């Protein structure tokens, strides 16, 4: 399969206009949060490494319709400063009584040599291996960078069973990847990367996107359910459902501003978690909500948002499905159903009442 050229050129136009305004922050961003490790509850130490950003986003394709992370990346990375602060933060942050999942994000692909030369990848992994508390290392990457050479480099510099490669698959449906996201890779590419990774003894995690542009919420729920089934069949044990948040300077943001897109309802996420956990009790299911409760993130009516977000967070950390069964009553639940229908039947063209 190939990309949709018309769609891609629309995205590229928006991208080129927005890239002009990008800032040049070279600061390494990090934070610690509660996290569910495979071994149990612990902490996640998350790094956003200031690389030059995602090569796909910078390419002639215009990148993904929904992603504006590129605007936060500096144009010229300084790897010396990056490594220096990385070392220091590890030293200052890691506490002996906790187990950690180290998340190395670049807003692009950690394994892309154009973003992080092999040498730098190596140094970061070596440094991380010094800490026994770090039980898991999560690297984000597009599947095309998951090559034998790169995996070999990882295996040489750290214990590879600790490694989890997180791939933003978004959907297992090629049509959606092509015509809604402009993802630039397809299901088969993901399968290949997953198989390679497993051969080398590392783990795979898939991100799924709820809900991409042009998909009604109804269709997107169906897509997530189907995608999860396909991913589970492949033997992947961790899926993260990422509820969309609208990044400025993106194709999606323009759609949203023209009132042709509504960010997903929290009810849908709650329903998805219940449904998937019931079907696949052993799957590690993560529900990630950015900008929850706001217009640009997943939200309900405003009254029940906090409660549902809290439940989904707690569930993600504990994986305890009983939490999801707690009954939440809110007058907007019927409205959500009415919306699901109207948006579906009208192909997202009827978001207003009249």
């Amino acid at each position: 399969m190939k990309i949709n050229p018309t769609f891609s050129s629309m995205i590229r136009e928006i991208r080129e206009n927005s890239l002009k305004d990008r800032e040049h922050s070279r600061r390494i961003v990090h934070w610690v949060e509660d996290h569910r490790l495979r071994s149990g509850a612990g902490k996640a130490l998350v790094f956003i490494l200031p690389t030059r950003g995602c090569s796909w986003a910078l390419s002639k394709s215009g990148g993904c319709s929904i992603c504006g992370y590129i605007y936060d990346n500096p144009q010229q990375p300084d790897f010396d400063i990056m490594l220096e602060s990385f070392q220091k933060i590890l030293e200052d942050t890691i506490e002996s009584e906790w187990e950690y999942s180290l998340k190395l994000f670049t807003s692009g692909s950690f394994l892309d040599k154009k973003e992080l030369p092999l040498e730098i990848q190596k140094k970061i992994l070596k440094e991380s291996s010094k800490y026994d508390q770090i039980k898991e290392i999560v690297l984000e990457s597009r599947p095309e960078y998951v090559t034998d050479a790169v995996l070999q480099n990882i295996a040489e510099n750290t214990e590879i069973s600790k490694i989890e490669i997180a791939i933003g698959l978004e959907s297992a449906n090629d049509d959606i990847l092509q015509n809604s996201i402009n993802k630039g890779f397809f299901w088969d590419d993901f399968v290949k990367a997953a198989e390679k990774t497993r051969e080398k003894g590392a783990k795979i995690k898939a991100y799924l996107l709820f809900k991409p542009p042009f998909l009604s919420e109804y269709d997107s729920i169906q897509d997530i359910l189907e995608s999860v089934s396909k991913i589970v069949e492949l033997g992947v044990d961790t899926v993260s459902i990422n509820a969309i948040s609208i990044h400025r300077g993106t194709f999606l943001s323009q759609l949203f501003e023209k009132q042709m897109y509504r960010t997903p309802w929290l009810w849908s996420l709650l329903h998805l978690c219940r449904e998937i956990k019931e079907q696949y009790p052993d799957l590690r299911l993560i529900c990630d909500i950015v900008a929850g409760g706001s217009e640009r993130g997943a939200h309900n009516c405003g009254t029940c948002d906090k409660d549902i977000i809290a439940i989904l967070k707690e569930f993600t950390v504990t994986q305890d499905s009983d939490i999801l069964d707690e009954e939440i009553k809110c007058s907007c639940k019927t409205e959500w159903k009415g919306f699901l229908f109207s948006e579906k039947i009208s192909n997202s063209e009827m978001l207003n009442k009249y």
Partner: protein
Amino acid sequence: MRFFQPLSQYGLARILAETRTRTHLSPGIIDIEKSSNSDDYAAFFDISLPPSYSNTDKILNLHWNIPEEKKERALATSFLYSLQPFYSSSIDDELSKADYNTYVENFLSLQDIHKQIYFLPIDFIESESFDSVLKTDMSLIALIGLDKIFNNQRKLSEVLVNLKEKISPDIAIYLPGPIAPSNYSFLIYMGIDFFDNSLSYYTSENGYFILGDRLYPLDKYPKCYCQYCSQDPKDIQGHNELMMKNEIAKVKYALEEGTLRELVEQDIHKSVTFAASLKHLDKKYSKVFRNRTPIISSTKIKCIGEESLHNPVISEYRERIRTRYKPSLKDKIILLLPCSAKKPYSFSRSHMLFRGAIKKAGKQVFHTLSEIIVTSPLSVVPRELESIYPARFYDIPVAGVWSDEEIELTSRLLLDVLSHYPKDIKIVNHMHGHGYQHIVDIVRKETSFEIIDTSSENPPTNPNSLNNLTDTLYNLIENQTIEKDKILSSKIRRLQFTADFQYGQGTGSILFSKDIKVKGKYPRHLQIFRGGEQIASLSSETGYLSILPKIAQEILDKTLNKLEFGVDQVLGSNIYAPGCINADTTILPNDEIFIVHENKVIATAKALVSGIDMNKMTSGSLAEVRKKLKVRK
């Protein structure tokens, strides 16, 4: 074969029924998910909201509420929403056009297209791909994107009229999404058939309480005593559904009764959006509605607002007076009279007084007199036509003040009627008041007729005025000789003009001459005999005629009510679309029409739809047979 067939038309609105079982389905509401209430709706979607692993079907099923005992005979009982385009039509042209064409290609390759819901964004109404779908038996359109132009009255009416003109009347239009029920009457009048109940789901803090013609916010609304509001806690969704169902029932009733236009005239005053729309429609698309609105009816028309002046029935009436009313050239005097509240006018006190005054001038005056009643909004009612619909059935608030538009319309039609008379005919004006005065002034200005005022000083029923009338008429006929053998009784005149109005100009004098006999008196139906055989009857309910097929044969080259039929014999009690080769476009629903095969009238029938739409339909019943030609074997 399409799934729907129209059972009656009123403008662009109609009652649609399932083709085989004739179960009324439209206008109606669709339940968006299967519920305990689903039976109250025209149809329901058999889906669960939200979708789950136990329900991964990509196709939505729509089930029609056809009674259990009829299901077996129905052409289909459920529809499928199998496909939709990927991109929204509001997105970039290049992207959406190609995508929509792909959608249409896929749609055309589906099985049983008559059971598939077709997705039509308003931007694609004029597209070639839509034209190709119209060649199939696609029966149901989901019309998308109307909300974008909902506040643009001109665009809204244009889009809907264009769409309705393009499609056959047996295709139903479903307008999905949350729509306020106060808009139903207008939208149905514009030809929308189905809505759904999604609005009733909007019960969050930002939701609605539907009551009367308003949507109230949920933190403040009037008290309601329905069962749903009486329970604790209140069931707002249940209440809202009830309101929607009540509203659609009201519109459906008006449609069956033939009073939809009046309901619309009342309802549009509650909405800023539609008040202007109706005016625009009446101005620009009057013909589209006129050509599909029955003129044979017996329901009262209340003409309250100025919109009534352009009620399609009334416009059609005026048009027929203009084109089909050709007065008797033997008449020597025209008498202009004011209208009366009581109908027919002859039964009113004022008109009894007028007739008394005329009689005093000599009984023979009637034989040479054209009585013309001047009125609004009908403009001109010849005495002979005072009992037909709508002349006998309209009511207006009498204030005696005429608007400029009323004066303009009325005088124009009056001038048209007067133009048929010889230049030397005398006009007696027995009307009084500013509006009438104004109209007569216009006639004086535009013509050279001699006009004698008999009621200018006093009201027309004042004894002085009545005496003036008697004296004037007496003087006018004093020197005239009346050729007795050429005199037609008022009954025959009435029948002739009614036939002209109903079947086409020139038919009356062929059908009814001096050799006929009329039995019966109002309020009974009239029976018309010729040579001992009843050839026609005149309904006292509608004021219109019904004639035998063999009599209809006599007016075949003059009538405008023909349906050319493909077979030489009518079987059964309906005329179906495949049998229709061509229908006169002047045919209106409810009209008595003549089924013609090779220049022979083989039956009379009552039209269900207009002639225009008969020619568009490819299946379903067009008319109900009344009388078949008796064939001797």
